[in-house]
């Protein structure tokens, strides 16, 4: 006999059924595969049998070590400096390659270094590119989430008024969301072009040529910022609509009451609008965070992770390895790490914004 839960919910199960089957087949099942594959040496194309390798893929991705070195000294015991006056240290190659005294450093590479007085501590990583991708993705999320959410709220407040032609503004702000991200990325590649890009022309026109031309996507110090700015612009309209729907659920009587009490515009925002938007804010924050962690298309179209890994991201690395380098197990391990990160951050956000009784 079917349980009461199943029977009394038959209609409900039938309604949820198609979606549940599709999600199971195309989201949950592949994800279970990804977890399993990340513990093997599975390749995209290979006649070799798949073998279980334990945590080797994770060790390869996350392996980090430190090495502290003293400066090079000449025969008189003085610290050697190069032409620019920078202190010279022994080459890391001597430690990370063919050096039996440091077996734990084999295959490692400098990630960054810290100076402690005269000596310098090198932080070495087994997979510098992945760690850079991790950091870049965090920078991307940390900037995009608040800025995009805030801008979207500002736009929503602007268009949440009765005015002739307001729908035109709504449509204009929403337009970039409807256009494919690949098309948007291609267009912005022209805008950011180092020679004749729109942005460079605009900047040199308003400054009468005082601002030099910048190769926005070709310069490691500007590439990530350029992609962040473009990404914020592209999806801000989507979150604007969500904020707008939240704004329109707030009862006008509250504003009327506020106006009678003599509330200033700031006060009515602070004490009526903002509390009324709390659930919307949680939704927007979590959605932006999750979307920002998955940043891929912009990178693939605009920079391919370059220059000098300044725009590598987690998902771009997962796809590059899984398909480009035929390393399905490595790509799967990256996806699992991303899943753990996004899950913990979402749980943390839920916990911080929980209902307090």
């Amino acid at each position: 006999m079917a349980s009461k839960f199943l029977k009394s919910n038959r209609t409900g199960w039938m309604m949820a059924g198609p979606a549940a089957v599709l999600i199971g087949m195309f989201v949950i099942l592949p994800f279970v595969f990804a977890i399993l594959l990340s513990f093997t040496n599975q390749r995209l194309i290979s006649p070799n049998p798949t073998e279980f390798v334990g945590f080797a893929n994770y060790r390869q991705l996350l392996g980090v070590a430190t090495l502290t070195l003293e400066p090079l000294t000449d025969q008189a015991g003085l610290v050697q400096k190069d032409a620019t006056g920078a202190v010279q240290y022994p080459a890391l190659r001597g430690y990370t390659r063919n050096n039996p005294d440091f077996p734990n450093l084999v295959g490692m590479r400098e990630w960054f270094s810290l100076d402690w007085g005269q000596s310098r501590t090198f932080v070495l990583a087994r997979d510098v590119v992945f760690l850079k991708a991790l950091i870049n993705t965090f920078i991307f999320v940390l900037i995009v989430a608040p800025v995009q959410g805030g801008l979207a709220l500002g736009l929503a407040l602007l268009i949440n008024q009765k005015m002739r032609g307001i729908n035109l503004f709504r449509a204009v702000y929403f337009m970039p969301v409807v256009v494919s991200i690949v098309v948007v990325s291609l267009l912005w590649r022209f805008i950011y072009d180092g020679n004749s890009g729109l942005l460079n022309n605009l900047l040199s026109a308003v400054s009468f040529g005082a601002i030099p031309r910048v190769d926005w996507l070709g310069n490691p110090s500007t590439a990530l910022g350029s992609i962040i700015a473009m990404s914020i612009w592209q999806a801000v309209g989507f979150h604007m609509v969500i904020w707008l729907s939240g704004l329109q659920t707030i009862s006008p009587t509250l504003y009327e009451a506020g106006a009678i009490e003599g509330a200033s515009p700031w006060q009515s925002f602070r004490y009526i609008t903002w509390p009324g938007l709390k659930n919307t804010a949680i939704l927007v924050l979590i959605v932006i965070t999750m979307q920002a962690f998955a940043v891929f298309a912009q990178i693939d179209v605009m920079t391919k992770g370059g220059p000098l890994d300044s725009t590598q991201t987690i998902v771009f690395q997962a796809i590059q390895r899984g398909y480009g380098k035929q390393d399905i197990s490595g790509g799967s391990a990256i996806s699992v790490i991303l899943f753990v990160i996004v899950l913990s951050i979402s749980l943390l956000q839920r916990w911080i914004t929980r209902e307090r009784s």
Partner: protein
Amino acid sequence: MKHLSIVTGALLASVALTSVAQAQTTLSMWYHGAGNEGEAKVLNQIITDFNASQADWTVELQSFPQAAYNDSVVAGALAGNLPDILDVDGPVMPNWAWAGYMQPLQIDETKIANFLPGPKGMWDGKLYSIGLWDAAVALVTRKSTLEELGLRTPTLAEPWSLEEFNGAMAAAKASGKYEYALDLGMAWTGEWYPYAFSPFLQSFGGDMVDRSSYKTAEGALNGDAAMAFGNWWQGLFTQGYAQATQDPADRDNGFGAGKYAFSWNGNWAALGALKAFDDTVFLPAPNFGAGAKIGAASWQFGVSAKSAHPDGASAFIEFALQDKYLADFANTTGLIPATATAAAMTENYKDGGPLSVFYGMTEANALVRPVTPGYVVESKVFEKALADIANGADVAGTLDAATDEINADIEKNAGYGH
């Protein structure tokens, strides 16, 4: 009732058609050139001629856009759904052969004895694929540029040395007439990097992988020769001879617009360069110490491992290797025909033809990219290392890291069957 009779009629007709066609066995074929009308026309002509020339086989063509072609083959192979005949990019062939997607061709080696070495796809001592054409890269410049800068015109017998090449760059920069001395094609990310730039490394004496064993890149990609190459490569950018990131439009039109003194470009762009300037000349690759080198091997035809009719598939490929088709392809695409006799039949590559120099270059300097299933990974690692070094990364650290990544991949694949 009326509908039913139409359906029945159609069924009967199709049965009748099939029974006629049954005398011939259908061979399916995949090709990467969807959207390219010229290539499609030549290929369709070959297929029509072949189908009419004998009674056993009918070839049916299905074309894919080049960007989606490799993915389609991999997906088709995973689903057990490959065609009888497929085409394959030369350096990728060992990967597919090793993975069991392809089988050796049943074509007598004497039939291809007069072919250039690049179009012959050899793996494991057997012929797996054969190309109707090859491609070559040259240093494109103008006769007037050479004269103005006071440079010796290099020849295949006596190419520029490293000093002469660097001197040419310095002279072009010093003249102040060009935005950059050299257009390397940095805008063409992807296979262009290993195809066009690994010959520089090989000319220094290094390589992407140690070709004596194919088991390691240690010493080849990070030895003394490779370090010399890396420092020279970085110098091209730090000294302002070339740009590390390039506008794709500059790659296409920059040389013609006079922005560059020299352009490192393929024969497919040669007619455009000739149109831009009457005195365009194609200089052979420089010799950086270990001989002048250029890349070789383009798209080739092969037979899939699961094909039930490898004899028919090989018969078609052998039919396509006739000089007249080689010449047709070369006339349509501008690529180099695989035999000298076919070259003589073409407008561009016959003796004294405007592009005939390229035939000599590929004959003299061509070196295929590493013949190993690991090439698909090695090429990507190499591309990233070169882009990073161009952007100012530490040369030794970058080449060491690339070596480690290639070695780790070879190990993960149990040596790729070498």
